[in-house]
């Protein structure tokens, strides 16, 4: 596999994570616990869709066979997506979404801080924007984890159960398997 192919697959992986996470978050639109949180979650969704757009746009340029970012986003079949499984887990209840947001947000902060130093200037540019968003996403999720965890017995249990269920999906973030899912 050539380096161009590797770069393309890596961009798909980054882009798909943002795309799928964004769409999962958008499922909260009009269903948030309160109006303000509904808008907050939709904002987070839009951050992800914007990031996906930038990454898949670059992926389409690297691929260089006339596909657009939209083609890559919406015209592949399900086996051609390379996102982490954690991003496609069902939206679930609010605590479940917050637990996902915490894991993904904290990972994204580490990832995009590193990618800001990428020798690929396009990736570094996207990362410079994404790191600001990721910090906000992690902060938003962190605040809510404290609220739910130290709230009522019910909110504590909902969050703890979510973390117990989702924890196993974080291992995939640190696999060094290239683009191939095994």
């Amino acid at each position, binding site marked *: 596999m050539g380096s161009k192919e590797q770069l393309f697959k890596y961009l798909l992986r980054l882009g798909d994570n943002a795309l799928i996470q964004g769409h999962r978050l958008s499922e909260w639109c009009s269903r948030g616990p309160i109006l303000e949180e509904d808008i907050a979650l939709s904002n987070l969704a839009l951050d992800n869709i914007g990031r996906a757009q930038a990454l898949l746009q670059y992926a389409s340029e690297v691929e260089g066979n006339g596909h657009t970012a939209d083609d890559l986003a919406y015209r592949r079949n399900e086996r051609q997506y390379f996102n982490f499984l954690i991003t496609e887990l069902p939206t679930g209840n609010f605590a479940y979404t917050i637990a996902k947001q915490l894991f993904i947000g904290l990972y994204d902060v580490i990832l995009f801080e590193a990618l800001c130093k990428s020798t690929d200037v396009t990736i570094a540019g996207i990362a410079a924007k994404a790191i600001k968003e990721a910090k906000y996403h992690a*902060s938003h999720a962190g605040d809510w984890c404290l609220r739910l965890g130290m709230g009522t017995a019910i909110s504590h249990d909902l969050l703890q159960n979510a973390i117990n269920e989702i924890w196993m999906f974080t291992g995939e973030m640190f696999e060094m398997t290239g683009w191939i899912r095994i």
Partner: protein
Amino acid sequence: MATDTQFDLWEVFIQGKSGGHHMHAGSVHASDKEMALKNARDLYTRRSEGGSIWVVPSSAIISSAPDDAAMLFDPANDKIYRHPTFYVIPEGAKQI
């Protein structure tokens, strides 16, 4: 009055640019100050409206009573000398 089930109310003030005043932008519901700040950010600064946010519990704001309006504000009506436009700007004054 129906019970508000949407957390406490906070007033939001946004500073448009550095050095400017924080202007009242609206209100948000939130259960604590961190949530109020984030909700204010998400509701009122999504289109680059500002660079600084204040949030204040609505309950901390004291407002004047409408019945006192005449006592408080009418005496200002005939004091035109309190307006800068009452005065003639001297020739050559660069700034007033």
